[in-house]
Structures are given as C-alpha cells and as structure tokens.
C-alpha cells in the first residue's frame, strides 16, 4: 500500500469502482473480514485482541471530487458538469482522464485573442468549457466516451520540496492510507474500518455503514482545508502544513464529541505527537452521518492538512501524514479507557 498507488486510482463520487477494487485487495491482506455493502462502501473488520471488545468505526472516504460527462457536441467536444465542490476557476487548461477506459483529454476555452476585456474579468463558467479528446466529430467521440462517464484531473503523485506530496485526490486518499496503515495491527478494541463512498456529494455512504455497524464510537479521517498561503489572513488559514495532524472541533455536519476529542488530544500529548486544531467550522464530513446514526455515536475527526484542496494539485506534508498514522494507532490502542469511562448513566 502506498499513497502513490491510492492516488493513482480514479474514484469520482458514485463511480468508485477503481479505487474500491484496490482497497478490497489491500483489505483482504490486512483484515479478518471484508465486505462491500449495497452502496459500495468497503467494510473491513479487524478483530480485537480480546473477546467482547467494543467496536470502533474508523471511516475514510474513498471518493473524490471530479467531473461527469453530460453530452457530446456535433464537433466531438464534450460537455461536462462538476461532481462535488470544484471551483470553476481551476478547471480551464487542465489535462483530464475520461471514463473507465482512461481516454485522455484537455479542458479548453476560447483563446485570449477572441475574448473581450469584459469576459476576462470573470472566471469562465462551466457552460463555456468543454473537454477536447481529439475526436473528429460526435460519432468518433461517442466510440470512446458516453454521457455519464466520470472524469478526473490528470495529475499524478509527485514528491517535491521539503517533504511535500502533490497529487489529485489527497482528500481523502490520505485518510484511506492512514486507515490501511492502522489495519496492520490489532487493538484491544475491534477496528471496523470503513472506506466510504459519496462523501463529497452529501456524506451518503457513511450513513448506511454506521447504521449497519452500530459502533460504540467513531473516528473520521480526512484531508482538510489548509489555507496557509499568501493573501489569507492568519485567522482564516484554518490549518497549517507541517504542524501535525489536525484534530477537528466542529464542521457544518457535526459538533465533534468533546470527550472523544479531548481523548485524542490527550493521547497525542501522551505520545509526544504535535497536533493542530482545525480553526474553522465550514465544510461537511462523514462525522454528521455517523454521529446521528441510530441512538447516537460519539465521533471525532483526525485529518491531514491539505493545501489547494478540491483542485488537481492537492498538497500535503509527508510528516503530517506519518504523524497522523502514528496518532491513529495510539488512539486505537488506548481507546478502551475512553469507552469504559464514557459508560455509566447519571443514577450513581
């Protein structure tokens, strides 16, 4: 398993076949039980080191934002729409890969010579963009591409600079990688590893998986917004690259369980792992779907700070990722104490 392999797989929300096949292979080697549910979530159970153990669901979403083919013009140019939250400004002039047959294309637009000064002031809307796969006409294009085909940006895994990694889809293949690495060990709690689908279009997969698993607690692993770049005020940076794994506080889907969050922070301190808070409350995650499943589940979030998230060139720091893997392992190792503490009603 490697982040390079994980990010090489396509997995636009709703079209997760390729990345799912990879994850199933990895899970079969690491887990005691592996199954795929009706929505396409991969659920891998790692038995506990003791009987009658509590169940901890750890979720990372396998899907990524991308595009979908909506039609083919007579000219052979392809119309598309975004899947998940993609800024239209990042689309133009990008190389893309269309469909399961991996047809290469580029996203084009009218050349600068043909645009008015007024047009150049506003970003190109998706309706003015198209994918060129080099087809001579509609008939030729339809032999390679069909409406409904998913599209990913052609942006490979590259290690660069001071321990940084660039690829598309590090949100949330970084989380998937952390989860696979945790599955290499066994813990006093049962690890119910879930690679969820359709997170980017409404945290849908996690909902069904949490209902089925009925866990005692849950952790959500994410690639999360990192705006530590020029022109952003300090209070709006949210997270910072290289400052360690991110611990969530609240997002638009959930107020993370304060006790479980405190336990994650205590565990980080205990093992000398520097962590950072997520200094922002926007954006949804699988936390909400899991937290409010059945009678309620305590949920916390751990994430890898991801620059330029939801673009073709997402960037993380390897040391943040590795520290995240270490923290997850420690949390699972010690989690029993949290689960035992939280029990007991108020009649005592």
């Amino acid at each position, binding site marked *: 398993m490697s982040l390079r392999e994980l990010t090489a797989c396509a997995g636009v929300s709703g079209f997760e076949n390729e990345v799912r096949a990879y994850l199933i292979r990895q899970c079969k080697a690491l887990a005691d039980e592996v199954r795929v549910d009706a929505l396409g979530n991969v659920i891998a159970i790692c038995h506990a080191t003791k009987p009658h153990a509590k169940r901890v669901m750890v979720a990372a979403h396998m899907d990524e934002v991308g595009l979908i083919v909506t039609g083919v013009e007579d000219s052979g140019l392809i119309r598309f729409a975004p899947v998940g939250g993609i800024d239209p400004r990042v689309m133009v002039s990008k190389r893309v890969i269309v469909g399961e047959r991996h047809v290469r294309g580029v996203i084009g637009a009218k050349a600068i010579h043909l645009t008015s000064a007024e047009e150049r002031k506003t970003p190109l809307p998706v309706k003015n963009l198209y994918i060129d796969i080099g087809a001579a006409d509609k008939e030729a294009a339809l032999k390679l591409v069909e409406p409904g085909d998913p599209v990913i940006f052609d942006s490979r895994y590259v290690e660069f600079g001071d321990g940084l990694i660039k690829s598309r889809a590090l949100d949330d293949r970084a989380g998937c990688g952390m989860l696979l690495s945790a599955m290499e060990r066994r813990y006093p709690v049962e690890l119910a590893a879930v690679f969820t689908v359709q997170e980017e279009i409404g945290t849908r997969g996690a909902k069904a998986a949490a209902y089925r698993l009925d866990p005692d607690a849950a952790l959500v692993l994410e690639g999360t917004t990192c705006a530590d770049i020029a022109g952003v005020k*300090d*209070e*709006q*940076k949210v997270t910072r690259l290289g400052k360690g794994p991110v611990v969530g*506080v*609240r997002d638009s889907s*959930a*107020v993370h*369980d*304060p006790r479980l*969050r405190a336990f994650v922070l205590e565990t980080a301190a205990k093992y000398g792992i520097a962590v950072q*808070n997520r*200094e*922002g*409350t*926007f954006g949804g995650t699988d936390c*909400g779907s899991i*937290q*409010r*499943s*059945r*009678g*309620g*589940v*305590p949920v916390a979030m751990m994430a890898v700070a991801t620059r330029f998230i939801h673009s073709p060139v997402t960037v993380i720091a390897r040391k943040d990722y590795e520290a995240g893997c270490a923290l997850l392992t420690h949390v699972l190792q010690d989690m029993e104490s949290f689960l035992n503490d939280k029990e007991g*009603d*108020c*009649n005592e």
Partner: protein
Amino acid sequence: MIRKVTAMNSRETLMKLCMAFGPTGAEDKVSQVIEEMVRPYVDEIRRDAMGNLIAVKRGQGKGKVMVAAHMDQIGLMVTSIDENGFLRVANVGGIAPRSVLYRQVTFENGTVGCVGLNAKAPSLDKVTLEHVFIDIGCESRAEALEKVQIGDTCIMQANFLDMGQRMSSPAMDNRSACAVLVEALKRLDTPAMDVYGVFTTQEEVGLRGAKTAAFAIQPDVGIAVDITGESSYPEAEATCSMKMGQGAAVKVRDASVFCTPAVVRWMEETAKEEGIPYQREVLTFGGTDTQAIQLTGAGIPAGCISIPGRYIHSMCETIDGRDYEAAIALLAALLKKEYQH
C-alpha cells in the same frame, strides 16, 4: 440516597435555567442544573452519546410518550486567536452579527469578554462575523490561551429580566420550554404512559439531539416544547397570528413539520377540557424537534406546544408569564392521559 428538595416555583425554575450555560455542543452545565431539578420526580435518568438528558417516569403501561425540549442556546465558537490575543469566531446557530456587537460574553470556565468590531468594518447592515472579534482583555496569544481554547463556545452573558407579567433573557429560547418540561415532570403523579422527558442537544444547528433520542426511545407519540413567534409588537408580520398573553400555542406547522393532525386534536381537546387558554400556531419559518421525532423509524405521531415570544434569537427574548403557565398546565394535562391513535 434521599435528597432534601427545596421546592422551587415555576418562575424560579425559569430564572435558574435562563442563567445556566449551555450553547449548542456544550450543554453539560445546563444539563446538570436540569438533572438536579428533575431527579426527585422521576424513576430513571440517563444521558446518550449526543448528550441528551433523558428523564423517565414510569406509567401504567399505556405506551410511551417522548417530550423534547432543547437545552442548547445560540452562541459563538472560537476559531482562531491572533497574536494580540483577540479571538475570531464562527456562529453557533442562527445568531445575527448585529445582535452580538458590543455585547458581553461568557465562556464555560467563567472567562468573560466583549464583542468588538474591526476599526475599518463596513456599515452595520454589511457587517459579518469576519469583522467581529472577542476581546478578553489579553495582550498576547499565549495569555489568551491560558483562558480560552480553539473550539470553546461562549454565550451572550446570562441574564434574566423580570418585568412583572413578562420576562426577558438571551436564553429564553429554549430554557422557557425546558422549564415547562421540568415543571410538568414535577406535577406527574401516575401518568398513563411511560413519560420520557428529553432535554435535547444541538437543536439550533439542525434538530440533531432529538433524532438519536427518538430512535432509542421509539415512542408512541412525541411532543416538542419550544418557543415561537408572536405579532403584538410594532410592525410585526401580519402572516403570524400568535399573540403574547393569549395562551399556549398548539403548533399546526412550522417550516420543518406539519404536526400530526390527531396530536393537534389531542392537544386542543385537552386544553378545552381543562379550561387552559390556547391558540393555534402556524409558523412560516423555523424548525423544531417535532420534525426529528416525527420522521424517526417508520414515523411517529408528533406535535408541539409553543410559548409565543418576541425578539427571538436576540439578547432580549421576551415571553409572557400567562403563556408560560398555560404551556405547563397543558403539558401536565396531556401527560396524565393516554394518547389515542
């Protein structure tokens, strides 16, 4: 252990609850206050993973009724702390930037502060929370971090204004409904149904606590208690018929729910039988725990008793004592009876 209970009247209950700390996601303190109040009157108390406080009074085997009153109140959450010790914040629930400006705030650990505005902020109608900060009297980030952490939530400083017949507080939504539920639980003698009094969490951000509580309890009927709008103040919306002082409001709908007609009838008939003043409520906006209960499992009959109020989600949410007492009387009367489908 038998506790000595000092009897508290219904207005004292309301005042005490309005003074408790409990923004969305940090309801522990108000939950403890409520637990103390209801413990002598119920058979069992527990909390669930969402932090809902569930107080159970066993009945005579005629099914289960769940009554939900949300404990949480709107507030502000710290998202970052700058090098000079000023806190930047995000809203918790529907809190308007103009209603928090230059107010005093309180954190769970007792830290207090003032809400300030960037010196170059735009005019008031254009102000967003990005232009707002909290000044807790510190000069550096390190000093501020000794008092407050990222993720801490504050409330507008608690207060309770007794104007005689009417009362005002920043926490009237929804401590007035919590007080109604507390007082009704105190008046339960031998209920027909098992009564699950649920003080729910996270209502203000999407009816979240009530959802899991209803799933776990699976009641035969659900009643939410909440605050609603009213229209007897200057230039109030003509589409709102509720008037302060005209009695408890029996909800027909709000933006989140159409109450189950049989439950509405049950409430209206009970009010008539007992001579309790009531009015119908049609609210064109807003959501309540009623929806979360109604849409649980294969669906649960649900309705809502509301207390008409003005200036909701401001620092001076105001209700009328007569409506408050009528809501208590109506809920207590309903809980004595069996719900007939």
